[in-house]
């Protein structure tokens, strides 16, 4: 290993570069929320949160939280000009009805056909699903940000998910700590990789064949 994998912030930064000006965006709870920090200069995305807010901004200063003003992760938020409130059915009408331009979620596993598993790793413990199953079948584009492998080094990009599915054939792009991979026609198609990792090394860390259909660009991100 002569490469340094991206930090979570750098993965989030890379995902943020693909969000267009004026896009309506839902970021999953946790790591994906970080994407909001890295909106490119001159672009303005509008962030949606499932509990019923459109157009929220960053967290308020500690001590000035209003706990009626929170996001789906139950963190305190602030509003930007042009924000609006609505009830849960309208909120998921936005999701399910295809009104969001992009949803960015975390993942346990992503299969080469676009299947996503991100809500449960087994049958033990207390299950919880939240809005993930709605988001993956709603947003015009569903992307995943994730480490390329699990904590114990197993591939997260796989031929077939072994964990319970969140959605079938829903993911079209995966931003990992090593690469940017599109899902097209039931295949993983490599778009970008760290310049320091070889194709063989990357393939060895991936649970299904990585295809290419043109030049693979360098995955290049700033220090963060």
């Amino acid at each position, binding site marked *: 290993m002569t490469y340094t994998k991206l930090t979570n912030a750098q993965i989030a930064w890379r995902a943020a570069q693909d969000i267009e*000006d*004026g896009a*309506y965006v839902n970021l999953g709870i946790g790591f994906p929320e970080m994407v909001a920090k890295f909106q490119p200069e001159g672009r*303005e995305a*509008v962030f*949606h949160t499932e509990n019923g807010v*459109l*157009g929220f901004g960053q967290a308020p200063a500690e001590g000035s939280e209003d706990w009626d003003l929170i996001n789906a992760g139950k963190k305190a938020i602030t*509003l*930007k*000009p*042009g*924000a*609006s*409130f*609505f009830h849960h*059915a*309208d909120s*998921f*009408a*936005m*999701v*399910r*009805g*295809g*009104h*969001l331009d992009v949803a960015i979620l975390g993942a346990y596993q992503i299969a080469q056909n676009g299947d996503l598993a991100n809500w449960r790793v087994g049958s033990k413990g207390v299950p919880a699903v939240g809005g993930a199953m709605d988001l993956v*079948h*709603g947003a015009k584009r569903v992307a995943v940000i994730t480490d390329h492998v699990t904590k114990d080094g197993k591939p997260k990009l796989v031929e077939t998910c072994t964990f319970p599915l969140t959605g079938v054939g829903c993911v079209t792009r995966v931003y990992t700590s090593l690469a940017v991979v599109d899902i097209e026609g039931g295949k993983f198609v490599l778009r970008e990789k760290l310049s320091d990792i070889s194709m063989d090394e990357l393939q060895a860390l991936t649970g299904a064949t990585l295809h290419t259909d043109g030049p693979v660009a360098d995955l290049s991100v700033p220090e963060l």
Partner: protein
Amino acid sequence: MDKSISTLTESVADIHDGAVLMIGGFGGSGSPIELIHTLIDRFRETGSPKDVTVINNNAGNGFVGIAAMIKAGMVKKMICSFPRSSNAEAFNEKFLADEIELELVPQGTLAERIRAAGAGIPAFYTPTSFGTELAIGKPTEEFDGKHYVQERWLKADFAIVKGQLGDKHGNLTYRLAGRNFNPLMCMAADVTIAQVSDLVEAGGIDPEQVITPGIFVDHVVEVKSPQQEEILVRTGAVH
């Protein structure tokens, strides 16, 4: 993020031949009369958009608005609940002459089909119309001993609606009962064009008072002191 458009003409320029077009309003209440008339003017000048399918509760009255669209010959089909009303001669004549198609939908089913389209619900069950001729050909199902008809979502290429306040993000409010179908149609069309009496900056509408969040709206055009269709109908105005 600025969804405002400065002229009515530009705002409806993309509406194409054969478009499925939702038009907000119920009678003259909340009817985007300036947008409709701008579209008619374009048709008269260019012959386009023709063969339009119009979705509205009614089929126009008098010689303005939807009635004028029909009279001008640009409407191929109406999808509505109540085409028969006073001063509805424009539709009546075309219909009885077999020159316009009609899909008649119960009013609540019409509203719910539009909302379903906006909410990503391809089909739902309703007790409405069960056992009537309007349910012929539709799947039925029994739930808990009651009979229901399966209805499909109703989508459009464009919606033209009338708001009261609009901001540059597309957030809208409505005036009184002018709300009616307008918020639903905003959700159900690929492209929604709203005329508003007052266009304000983002932040100019209290977030708690937004009725249609901007995500459902594509273009906003300001029409100060809009005309009221009902008054035009009552005074015999002709467009």
